[in-house]
């Protein structure tokens, strides 16, 4: 029976650790939301976060969406040709980008670019005692560091998703009209007429959730790091992994809610 208890222990340990981490992250998220609703709000920090999360993410989001939209058009055209459905390229590119690829790709790009940057910055502040220094200077680290970043994630990532959706559709339009022989005005008409309001708001809602997850994970792992440079590296890696997995899981749940009810 000893092998059975060893096996159960081997399964139980990571499950308990995972549940513990989920609980701590949930408490951290709750504290962040509670601090968002109470002053003071550090506007200057929000301004910095707006630039870092939003403005400086535009190039990576734009390029990712552009190439993905173009590749999607090529795939749909070539796949659709198998059952004479090449004409649906504009509609499928539009729905694919707006409902799914736009929010998910932007979310993952934000996880790669912003979550890592937030985690590394806050973790470095932790191991160099800058977080302790904030406390001794009567400044709550959660209010000063976490709230501005998460607030901006909630606001800016939907905006980036909107931009990504448009650029992705534009990527499909370029490929469709320049290489696949679609008429430009027909392509645009088919795109605009096919998209529904629900597609757009669901895309933006996903963006808000993904922005919240991405920035929260960066702050959580940054704040909870230890052990010097190795700890900073581990916090950054863990934050990006957790953000990416949670974004994909949240995408599945949100898609189930938005499009099956």
């Amino acid at each position, binding site marked *: 029976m000893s092998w059975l208890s060893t096996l159960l222990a081997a399964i139980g340990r990571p499950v308990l650790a995972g549940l513990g981490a989920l609980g701590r992250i949930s408490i951290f998220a709750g504290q962040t939301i509670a601090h968002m609703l109470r002053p*003071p709000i550090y506007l200057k920090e929000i301004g910095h976060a707006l630039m870092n999360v939003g403005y400086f993410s535009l190039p990576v989001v734009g390029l990712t969406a552009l190439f993905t939209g173009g590749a999607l058009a090529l795939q749909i055209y070539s796949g659709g040709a198998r059952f004479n459905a090449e004409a649906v390229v504009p509609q499928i590119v539009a729905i694919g980008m707006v409902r799914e690829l736009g929010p998910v790709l932007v979310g993952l790009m934000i996880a790669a670019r912003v979550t890592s940057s937030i985690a590394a910055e806050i973790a470095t502040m932790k191991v160099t005692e800058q977080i302790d220094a904030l406390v*001794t200077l009567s400044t709550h680290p959660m209010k000063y560091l976490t709230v501005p970043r998460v607030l901006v994630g909630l606001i800016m990532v939907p905006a980036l998703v909107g931009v990504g959706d448009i650029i992705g559709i534009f990527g499909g339009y370029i490929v469709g009209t320049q290489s696949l022989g679609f008429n430009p005005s027909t392509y645009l008409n088919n795109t605009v007429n096919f998209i529904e309001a629900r597609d757009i708001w669901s895309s933006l809602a996903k963006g808000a959730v993904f922005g919240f997850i991405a920035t929260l994970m960066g702050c959580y792992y940054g704040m909870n790091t230890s052990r010097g440079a190795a700890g900073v590296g581990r916090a950054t890696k863990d934050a990006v992994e957790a953000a990416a997995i949670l974004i994909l899981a949240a995408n599945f749940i949100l898609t189930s809610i938005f499009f099956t009810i």
Partner: protein
Amino acid sequence: MIELTNVHKAFGPKKVLRGVNLFIAKGTSMVIIGGSGTGKSVCLKSVLGLVKPDSGTITLDGEDVSRAERDSFLARFGMLFQGGALFDSLPVWQNVGFRLMRGSLKRPQAEAREIAIEKLRRVGLTPDVADLFPAELSGGMQKRVGLARAIAAEPEIIFFDEPTTGLDPIMSGVINDLIREIVTEMGATAMTITHDMSSVRAIADNIAMLHDGVIQWTGPVADMDASGDPYLDQFIHGRAEGPIEAVR
């Protein structure tokens, strides 16, 4: 006055503080000495609430620090961190004036900058340093900026965590002298942790030696050399032989 009574703190199985009792009178400079990893920083951070003791009480002027209103409690303190702990993203003057631009001590930005420059001058730095970033400063300059930040809001109590670590002997002497002068002229209560004996002699009115989680010896710095305590003797003379194990 600050009083620690029977303070215990463990990190997992490692018991760092095993019943620390310490009294720091108002307006005096207490230096806590002890080997690396003996809990000096934990002791200091416990007073500030950065570390929560497992048991025991810490009082400031008779009031339990764990029950004090945080903002007004922390407004009474200034702290110089071991590595400076300056905020990389802010220029020097904003680091120094950080507390003066937020919270209950908030004042106009121009006034905060003026005070920051004045404090920089007090620690021997010229106004042109004000607009540099911490990464552009040497280790000694960073310590001075940290010191300027610690005194910017004219606190009643100042904590110094290893103020001379990583500095050459001359710069250590400069920082020690600055600390002594500033504490004396402000009439502040000071608590310093260090294992640098030149700092001890320059800064302390009283010393306490922390070993094995308890205060092994405490008394005026003048009595240190004739204490007769084998632990203190071994430490201040830097002997490998004695009751303190060299490899811990």
